[in-house]
Every structure is written in C-alpha cells, then in structure tokens.
C-alpha cells in the first residue's frame, strides 16, 4: 500500500481526474472510486483528497456544485471540465511514456 503523498503530486491529480471522467462525484465518492480503480493499492487520505480537489478546481480542471447524493443527502459534486478532460488525456499520455521508460530501465540488464 502506498501513501499517495509519498508519490508525486501529479499521480493523485491524475487518478482524481480519471475517477471523475466517468461521472461527476462528491469527495468521498472520488476517494472510493480511486481505491476501487487501483484495487485498493492506493488509499486516498481525506487530508490529501480535499486539498487536491480544491487545487484542481482552482486550475479550472474540475467544477463543483451542490447536489443530492444517492441517499438524498446534500453533497458537493465535482465535475470534469473540458480543459480537465484535455488535461487528463495529456497526463495519461505522459504517464504512459514515463511508466514505459521506467519499466524498460528497471528491466534492462546492463
């Protein structure tokens, strides 16, 4: 299990964007979706999650509005914006390249 803060900041942002790309969600929902997506490899601490969401909102990648949750409770919902979706694409490509390069270098025999 990794602590997200132990990873580079961008990883958490990337995972949040990915989680929101399927549907708008509230903070806790995003955390659960990330845990689910990564098969519990990442446990997202609220102390990292909420600041990250606010940061992404300030960057214009997500938008927030109040809405009703599944069990009829008021909750703040986050939604990916158009620039956010573009950003997700860029970061995904970047991540793939980096992951590929790192994997290659770790497998290299000399």
């Amino acid at each position, binding site marked *: 299990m990794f602590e997200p803060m132990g990873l580079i900041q961008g990883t958490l942002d990337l995972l949040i964007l990915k989680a929101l790309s399927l549907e708008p969600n*509230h*903070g*806790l929902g995003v955390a659960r979706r990330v845990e689910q997506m990564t098969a519990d490899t990442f446990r997202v*601490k*609220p*102390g*990292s999650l*909420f*600041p*990250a969401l*606010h*940061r992404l909102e*300030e*960057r*214009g990648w997500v938008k927030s509005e109040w809405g009703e*949750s599944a*069990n009829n*409770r*008021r*909750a*703040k919902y986050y939604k990916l914006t158009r620039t956010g979706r573009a950003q997700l694409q860029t970061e995904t490509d970047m991540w793939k390249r980096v992951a590929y390069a790192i994997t290659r270098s770790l497998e290299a025999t000399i």
Partner: protein
Amino acid sequence: MRKLYWLARRLFARTQDQADLRQEIEASYDMVVAEHRARGASADDANRAARRELGSAAALREDVQDAWTGAWLEQFARDVRYALRGLRRDPGFAISCVLTFGLAIGGTTVVGTLASTLLLRPLPFPDSDRLVMVMQRGIHETGEGHNVSAPNARDWSARNRSFERMAYFEFQTFNISAGNAPLQTGGLRASHELFEVLRAKPLLGRTPVAADDDGTSGDVVVLSYSLWHDSFAADSTLIGRAIQVNKKPYTVIGVMRPELVFPGASQKLWIPMLLSENDKSRRSQSFFGVARLRNGVSLEQAQRDLRRVGSELAREYPQSNEDESINAFPLREVRMQNITRVIRLLSAAVALVSVMAVVNVAGLLLARGGARSREFGARLALGGSRARLITQLITESTVVALLGGVLGIAIAYVALPLFIAIPGLGLRSLPFRTTANVTIDVRILVASLAVALASGIIAGLVPAFSVVPRSPAALLRQGGARGATARARHGIRNSLLAIEVGLAVVVLVGAGLLTDSVRRATSVDPGFDARNVFLFSLALPQKDFYGVPERPLFCGQLEERVGSSGGVISASAVSSVPLSGNGAGRSFSIEGRPAPLPKDMPGASYGIACPNFFRTMNIPLLGRDFSPRDVVAASQVAIVNGAFQRKYFAGERAVGKRIRLGGDSAPWIEIIGVTADVRHSALTSDVEPYLYLPYSQAVWPYMNVVVRTSNGSHATLRQIQERVKAIAPDEPVGEPITMQSVADSSLGYMKFPLYMMLAFAAIAVLLTIVGVFGVASQVVVQRTRELGIRRALGATRGNLYQLVVAQTLAPAVLGMIGGVVVARISGGVLNGLLYGVTATDVRTFLLMTVLLGAFTVIACMAPAHRAASVDPSRTLRND
C-alpha cells in the same frame, strides 16, 4: 488571470468559501455516518468510525485552506493578527521591545544616512574619483602638506605628465555690496582652469577663461548659487552687470549650479587670478592645487611624477624649494579625517547597541515564551504543527521589530537635522559637500527596514526553538517549567546574558576612554581666560593688501569708542583668535646669527593684534604691549609666545632681540614682549612658536574685535556692535560670539562622540541590569523547591544569597571577559579621538569592568533576597 481570480476570491469572498468548505466536510461526515448506520452500527460507533476515517474536521479544513491560492498570505495575516493580539494583552512587553528596536533602528538610520551621503557618495563633480588635491610637502613632512606659491603651482601645472589639467586657488574674504547692504563673504581667487578641472558647468553665463586671468578682460566674478539667490534675489539679468567687490566694480560673468560647493559652503564667489607682484615670489605660499588625473594614470603614478617635478624644482630653486616636494591625494579625503573617525565610531556603537537590542528582545521573548510553553504543548497535542508555532513566534518578533523600525525611522527623521546642526561636528562645513542632500533616501529606508526585519527574525528564532517543545509528550513528561526544555531555555538565557554583558563592557570602555580624553583636554590651560569675552568679526579691506596700513587709526578708534562703552572692561582686536585653528605662517631670520639654509629657516605662525589684546584676554605678558606709538615710521616691533622664546632663544632673553621677515631688504623687527603659551590651533595640539605683529605696522583684511565685558548683557553687546559699526560704517559687523563657544567648538569633535557614547553606555547598562535581573529571578523561581530544601537542611540565608548571586554572575563574568577581549581588539575605532590616553588604557578597562560588575551584583540583589527569604515549609507544600 485565473490565479488572480482565485486570489481575489479567496481573499474577498473568504467567509463564503469557508462556510462552503465547512458544509462540504460536514456533509462528508454525515455521509460516512449514514453508511455505517445503514450497516446497523449504533450512532456512537458510526460517529467514531467517521472520525477514524476522516480525521479531525478542523485539521481537514485547515489542510484544504492551506492548498488555496494565497494561503501563505492568509496564514501570515493570521499570524500578524495573533501577534498584535498578544502584544495588546502585554503592553509592557510590547512597549519595551518596540522602544528597544526603535532606538537601535533610529540610530542605524541616522548613522547610515550620514555615512552614505557624506562618506560613500562620490563628490558632486563628474568623474570625481579622478580629482586630486595637490599640495607642497616637505620631504620629511607627514600629513597632507601645506600651501604653495603661485610660481611653483604654475611650474607643477606645466611640468607634470599626469594631470589632464590643474588649477590653483587661495582663500579670500570679500566685501561685496548687494543692493544697499554691505556683506562679508568668503571666496576664492582661483586660476581660470578651476571649473574645467571640476567639469562644473555654470547655471547662467560662463566660467572664467585664460583672458580673465591676465586681466585683459577686466575684473570679473563668478557667483555661487546661494549668494546669487540669497543676496541678489536670483536676478538673471545680473550677468554682464557689475557688482561692488572690495570697493571695485567686478562684472558678473556666471552663476554656478546649487550643488557646486568649492571648497566649502562659505566660499560663495570666485574671482580669477590676476597675479600681483607678491604672487611672483616662491616664498609667498598661500595657494592650493587641484587637478584632474589624466585617463589611465593612477594616483601612485601621479605621485611619482610629482616627486620628479618636486626634485627638479628643488634643484633649480634651492633658496625656496630645497627639501620640498609635492603631494597629491584624492579630493574626497580633504579634511574628512575627523568626521570619518566620528562616523566610524558611531557606526560601531550603533552596531553594538543594535545587537544588544536583538539580544535583549530575544531574552524578553524567551521569558514570555517560558510562560506560554504549556499553551504551545497543548496546541501541539491538538494537532498543531511545530513549524507553524515557530513561524508564529517569529512573526510576533518580526511584527515588533517592524513597529520598532517604523518608530526608528520616525526618530531618525527628527534626529537627523539636529545632528547636522551640531556645531562641533562641523557637518555644515565639510568641503565640497552640501548638507542639503543629507536626507533619508529610499535605499536607506529599505536598508533600515531590512535591518529591522532581520533583527526581528533573529530575535524570534533563538527563543522560538527552545520555547516550542519538540513534542507534546516531551513537555508533559517533563512537567512544564522544570524539564529539559526549561533547562535549555535557561542555557540560552545565560548565553544571551553573557553576550549582553560583553557588549556592555565594550560600550562602557569606549565611553570611559572618551570621557577621560575630554576630561584631560578640557583641563588643558588654553592660556587665556574666555569668561565674558565676546568677539565681533569685522572686515577692514585694504586696496593694497601688502602695502602700508590704510586705517592706521583703527586700534585707537576701537579703544576710544568701544573701550569706553558701558560694561566694557577692555577692548582690542586680533586677526586670528585663539583655538580657532587657523593662522598664517612666516619664516624669518634672527639678527646676529649666520643665515641658515632656506630649509632650516626658523618659522612661526603669526597674527596681527591691536594694543591691549593680551590684557583683554588675560594672557600674561612679560615686557611691553603694543602701543599707539608703534606706527609704520617708528621701529618695527613684535611680541612672541613662550614656545617661540624656548625654541629660538633658549637660555637667552628674547626681549630686545631683532628678527626679519622676508628678504634682506625687509626691516628688522624688535621683540618687545613674551606672552604665556596660548593654544592657537586646538586645545589638544601642542603649542607652536607664535608671533604677534601690531595692526598699525602690519595689516590684515579682517579682524576680530575682542571685548571683555563685566556682564555680557544684551544691551551691552548691542551697544558694542553699534560702536564697532560706527568705526567702519561701510563694512559688515558680525553678530557677537562668545569666546567660550569658540573654545567649546574646538573640542566639539571629541565631545560629540563622547555624549553619544555616554548615551549608548547608559542604554547598555540599563539593558544589562534588566537582563541580569531577569536571569536571577528565573534562577530563584526555578529553584524555589531546592532552596527550600537547602534551607530546611540548615543552609543559612547567606548561603542562599551566595548561591543565587554566583549562579547569575557566572555568565556575566564570562561575558565581561569576552567584552574586555573585544574592546581590546577593536580599540582602533577610537584612533584620533583620544587625547592623553591610549585605546588600551588598563585603568579604564579595570574601572569600567568593575563598574559593570557592581551594577550586575546590584541587579541580582532583589532576587537573591527573595531566595534567602524562602520559607521551607511553604515551598515544600507547594507544587
């Protein structure tokens, strides 16, 4: 753009964002609780689970807010508000810190402004670092050198290979009439190259050219801006018109710019050379040279080149130039020695006091922090971060320091003009500089605030680390006031105390040495009695400066009109008053002795006096005084001083001997009296041979009327001034000056730094007493229990007294030792400001250390007394 939007929003719509955030997090809690409830958990269990999953709501909110744009700003504002609240709660602490910093920053600002505008800023001439002063200097002579004759100066100018251009000039006093009012002002007679050398462009008209120097274009004059502005109403049609200078019409050809000061603020006009017969002698030395170095020529190269010129001239004119050489030095160093020393000393003192201020505030913060360490422990336990607490403490000390900085700058604005006006410091008469531009500029303001900021951070840093416990557990384990943190705090307090005492020793030793110097200097016998003596300066222009006196009756008229005035005991006049520091020099030969080589010619400073001068000043005189019968047609007479008698007539009677000033055709002058030694240049310089000539036989263009009064009342002085005016109705008469003020200003450059150092020493002692008292009190508070036990086990009151004093004195003694070492090393700062003592004077060191030691012991007394009165039964029950 987006960043700006968010910054604005987080700052201005903050409350709304915060409410929103609160709701978001509460909603998250509710959601988790609801989930657990849905799974059948009890309300309590669900709540606990939610808290476990989400942590503290407050901490979460803080985390999010820290991620917001402008978070640091908000945090900083919060810290500042917190600090201000804390200061309001503890005004005593706040006031003492702000005052301490204010004094230190005020001093730094004033001294910094003086240093930067007077010492560091280049002179107000283009490429001023290429300008040098050129003076004649004997090859065995040290110092700047002395005046040069016009022919020599011209040869220097023609033969050197180092100067782009060289000019020479002499000081003169001019009487001009501006409108109806006669006015006396200083000025220069200067060769036409002067303004070219300085590269000074006129504001109006032109500067002199070669034709003006040989008189082909008639008499012309250039005015300073201040003279033109103040006395000619800034009349721009003045150019080309004639004004009366020394009773002759001079055409005004130019007015210089306001910033041109050459050499001093009192030289307000410049006339071209127009060499007279007298200027053709190489013996008549009254000029100074000023030159601009050629590009690429260094000062050393120029000095070598000038030594060559000097030795050429010495070979060609051995009569006048043997053993004479030439010295060149940067123009910016001219007559800056005293003020440079004083500013250096003040800089050092201000630096010491500033460090003491920082140390003192650090001590105060530490003491305050001790009281708050439980609060900090609690905040750490509740999840506050250590870095945040430390930042907060530093913010607090920084806020205090910046408040102090603002106060200090305000103090500086008030104090600076006062400094400039101090006569003894002579800031108004520094060469080539005007005090008009001695203002606190932006750079100084920024620097002062930076010093304040740095002081605040340093003063906060030291206590912050020891006051904030490493972890709440540590604090709880140690039981608050008595644990390891407290011990560390005590160690730091002791170190701070040692530093404070050390610095105080340095300041005290400096003050002690200066006190001793001034005491010795003031106990020097000036050779006259200054009480109730007043001076009135008076111009007595001569058309032919070197001719026969044109006012042979002046002294008699003075005696008759002023001497008989009510309240006047005796009246006379003299060309140069004692202690005023100036006087011309002459060489002479003595009758009946073989003519010495020119370089061994005896010499003396000389002055011109009326009869009764010695009686008026209460200067003892052996032989006879000048009398109205000493006219030009009668035999020439002179009075000499004791030093003259000792140097040239040791073991003989000087009275009756004859000397001759100048060449073989000059008349013999009989010495008719010997006076006591009068300090002519300064109280602290040795008495040199001095020669007085009677006004009726040797003229001088301006005299000081000297009057001894019975009471010095205002009415008496007005009447004297009126009567002096009546003698020379066309000439300006100066306002009365007391002889005492002349004597006082002669020591001004020593007294001023003394007063400053005494003030600094008082502050230093005060800070030390506060520091010592604080440490001793803490010793007592922290060891009350132990003291009680000791008392119960039979320690006497005396033992306890001793314990506390010894505990406190240990760091103080260490500090004193350090201070003595520092003072011993840095004594050089006092060079040139001491008289009769050296910077390493053992007596002063001992005295000051003992004095400070005594203050330290006294400061421990009250706490020690409290320790001795500890009631064992009560302290053991406490806590």
